Structure formats: structure tokens, C-alpha cells
């Protein structure tokens, strides 16, 4: 069944990746989190060994998705210890804070900046997941400054 999970992860990773980009572009609070990063600031969400990898680069006020390369220089690399935990996070079964608390991931890079990614992720989850899901995984709902419809449109169609 691992291959089914891998396909689901790949699919949801695509959606969440685009959702994160849309959230940063359209939500003021999410954008504020990355505004002080220098252009080219690179984040990789990784899985130990052969799991999925998502890579973002900050450019202007946006996060751009970039093809992952083994030799690329990253500023923050969040590495989940096994594929199933990525599945649980991407499907809203477990929050990032819980994954952190349970030592299910390691972070290479500045923890101070990593917390900004966590908050950005929460905002994104509040837009993309229905309330009954995000309520289970987010301690307190962050302030949202855009609306779900716009974020969904931008996620699915790449609309600005």
C-alpha cells in the first residue's frame, strides 16, 4: 500500500505547494512571514531517503516552486523521518506542531525562520482544509485576510 500513499502524497503535495504559493500571494499575514527573507531564500520540505521533496524559493513577495536538485543550497530543510508522517500531515491527520513535538522531523537551518514556515502552513491549511479537519490540527485559528474561494481558484487555476 506504500505506493498508493506515495501517489496520494505526490498529488496532495502538488495541491499544498500551489496552495502555499497562493496563500503567500493573497494573504497579508502569510506574506508578512516571508517578507524579510532575502530573494533566493530556499526552503525544502524533504523526506528521509526516497520520499517526496518540495522546494520553494522566495522571490519578491512570492514563493516560487523550484525543481529539487540534490546539490542545491538550501536555507531551511525540513526532513520528515518517514513517508507515512508526510501522508498524515498532508491529509490533515496530524499538525506540524505535533510532528515537531514527537520528533518526527528534523530541521536543518534557522529554527527562528522555520517557525514562520509553520505559521504560513497553518494559514494555508485553514484555507484548503474544511473546518472539521483544521480544527483537529491547529491550536488556534490564525487571522485570515483573504477568502477561501480566491485561494482555491488560485490553487487550482493559478489565478491572480
Amino acid at each position, binding site marked *: 500500500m506504500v505506493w498508493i500513499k506515495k501517489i496520494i502524497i505526490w498529488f496532495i503535495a502538488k495541491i499544498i505547494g500551489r496552495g502555499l504559493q497562493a496563500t503567500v500571494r493573497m494573504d497579508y499575514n502569510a506574506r508578512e512571514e516571508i517578507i524579510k527573507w532575502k530573494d533566493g531564500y530556499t526552503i525544502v520540505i524533504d523526506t528521509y531517503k526516497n520520499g517526496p521533496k518540495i522546494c520553494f524559493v522566495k522571490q519578491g513577495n512570492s514563493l516560487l516552486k523550484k525543481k529539487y536538485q540534490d546539490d542545491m543550497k538550501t536555507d531551511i530543510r525540513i526532513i520528515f523521518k518517514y513517508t507515512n508522517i508526510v501522508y498524515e500531515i498532508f491529509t490533515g491527520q496530524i499538525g506540524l506542531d505535533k510532528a515537531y513535538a514527537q520528533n518526527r522531523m528534523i530541521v536543518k537551518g534557522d*529554527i527562528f525562520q522555520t517557525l514562520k514556515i*509553520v505559521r504560513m502552513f497553518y494559514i494555508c491549511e485553514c484555507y484548503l482544509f474544511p473546518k472539521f479537519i483544521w480544527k483537529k490540527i491547529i491550536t488556534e485559528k490564525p487571522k485570515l485576510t483573504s477568502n477561501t474561494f480566491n485561494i482555491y481558484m488560485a490553487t487550482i487555476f493559478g489565478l491572480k
Partner: protein
Amino acid sequence: MNSEYFEYQNRGKLLSGKNAIDHIAYELNNMMCKKPLIITDKMLVKFGHVNILLKALKEGDIDNPFIYDDVPADSSVEVCNAIASIYRENECDCLIALGGGSVLDTSKGVNLTLSSGADNLLDIMGLGIIQRKTVPSIMIPTTSGTGSEATLVAVIADKLQNVKMEFISYNLVPDVAILDPRMTLTLPPKLTAATGFDALVHAIEAYTCKQKNPISDVFAIRAIKFICDNLIRGVVDGKDEDARLALANASYMAGTAFSNSMVGMVHAIGHALGGVCHLPHGYAMSILLPYCMEYNYDAVGNLYGELLQYFVGIEETAVTPRNERGKRCIEEIREMLKKLNEVGGLPIRLRDVNVSKDDFEKIVENAINDGAAIVNYRNVSKEAVLAILNQAY
């Protein structure tokens, strides 16, 4: 117990008790080390603590260890990098840290730099950063508070950004920790109170944060009991060796607890206060704890209630209604602070320690991005931190 996943590690050896330092040469021999680099500070050289260590080493035929005694009160990345260079130049084969939290954390920073082969500690920031074996190390605390001799965390300042940075790895726990009451006998009452209270906050936060687990709970509870029974005693009579040793053991146990369950909001704001205003960590902990407990009460009030018995005894707890125990626990901590303020001069307001309201914005920004914020049961938001700072002012 529920079925939540947790990880636990406590790999170090502990030597605790009267004349514990005298065993150090034997331990070095076990580790096959002959040329230690001692990391300490000038005050400890002056007060004779380093001499006790040197004498113990000499008895084991370790005659000329290299000594670095220039660790400042608030250590930094630059200091760690400089000591790592000295270690390499002198071809040392292990680290002995003798001092308070700053010295012990510096030693961890040096160890990280050496073990990773980096020249700059900033290149290896993060959580779970070192997988390989680290340089053999022994830690001898001279305060009873940070618990750094038992933890996987090093908090080191980045002076450029005015931020206290966290480096986290299970491999940072030293091979041997030595608790010798002679090392803390000269600690002044105010510092004894502040560091002891720091240990209390470690234990309380370890017991009440998201990463808590049944094993760390055991250490946290025992640490709280030891501190409640001995802190005021140790502050009033600094020469009380039993109280000193109990506090040292409590600090170690609280360190073990929070090393495996992390700390929460009190530390997130405390680190920020230290980074921005250079407020001593123990002062920040004592000032902030009651306010943060009140904020967290809705989420973990029942856990605070479970701790009441260590502050007031079983009989008093039994006659306190269950739903009032959490609040009562916070009240008892306030009483303890008041007493420590009277007998040890421990500050209890931010305005007493020259923190300026002008710095609040920067403190808030740093606190919400501190690694400890993520495991606090309630959300550590800008608004919440600002409200707590204003209450504590």
C-alpha cells in the same frame, strides 16, 4: 497513558554527591581521553573551583590540560568558533566544561562545531542536526538551574541579530555529568534563587507542554518536589550541602525532563528577553512563570492541579476541591516567588530589571519565532506575548 508516540533518550552517565569530581580522571580514562580542553570562566578560576578540578585531574596523571577561561556571561557563536580553533590547534581529545549555563552551552556549541567539521557554528543550525558521534565531553555545573548537563539543547547568542539561537541534537548530551556540592556552595542567594527557579520552570513546562511523555513526567515531578523542599532552604543557608546537592539533582532531573519534552511559552519569551534586553535567564523565568501559567490555564489547568501536592503537601491538596487545584498551584508559586524575593532578592516585575517597554515589539517578534513556542499547548501569538509582557511589567 494514551497511545501517543514519543521518543526518549538519556544516554549520559551521572556522578552525583560529595567529592564527585574526584572521579573525573577515572572517567576520562574510561573514555580513552588524555588531553582535555577545560572551558570555564575567570570567576571560577578566582574562586578556586578550577583548582578543585585540576587537583582531581592531577591525581589521575593528567597534568597540563589546556584551559580556556574567557567565556562571557552571555556566550556567543563567535566564542564557540574561537574555542573550537583552540581545541584543534592544541590537538585536544575531549572537552570538560566547568561553569554555569553559558559555559556548558558554549561547550556544546564548540562540540557541534568540532563534530561537524565546520568553521562556523552558524553553518549547522537546526533541530536534530548532528547524527554522528560527538567529541567526548564532561560537564560540571556550578549553578543549579539550566540543567544543561542533561539536555540536548544549546542556547547561544547571535550577537549580530540580538537573538538567542537554539541548537538541538540528542548527541549534545554529555558523556558524563558531575554534580558536586562544592561547586555550588559559593553561589550567592540571588543567583541560587534565580537558577533554582529556572529549574522549576523547566520541570513545570516539561510536565505541561505538547511533547510531554510518561518518562519525562517522572523526572519533572521529582525535580519539582526537590525544588519545593530545598530551594528556600538553599537560598537562606548557602552552606547547606544537602540542600545544594538536592537542587543540583533537581536541576539535572528537570534538564532530563525538558530535554525529552521541551519547554514552552515561558522559555520562548524568556529567550527573547535575554536576546533583546540581556536579562539573566533565571530572572526572566521567575517574572514570567505565573503570568504564562494563567494564560495556559484553560489548556493545562488540570496538570497544574496535579502539581499542587508538591507545593502544599498531600493533606492540603486533599482538602482543596479538584477544580480549584490548578489556580491554587499558581497562587502557591506566587507565594514562593514572594518569599524568594524577601530572602534572596529575586526580582518579580520586569520594571525592576530595567526592561524597557520600547523593546516589547522586538521581544514579541523573537518570542513567537522561538522553537519553544511551537510546543506550548496554547498558541503563542503576538497579542498573547504582548499582554503577558504588560502584565509582568
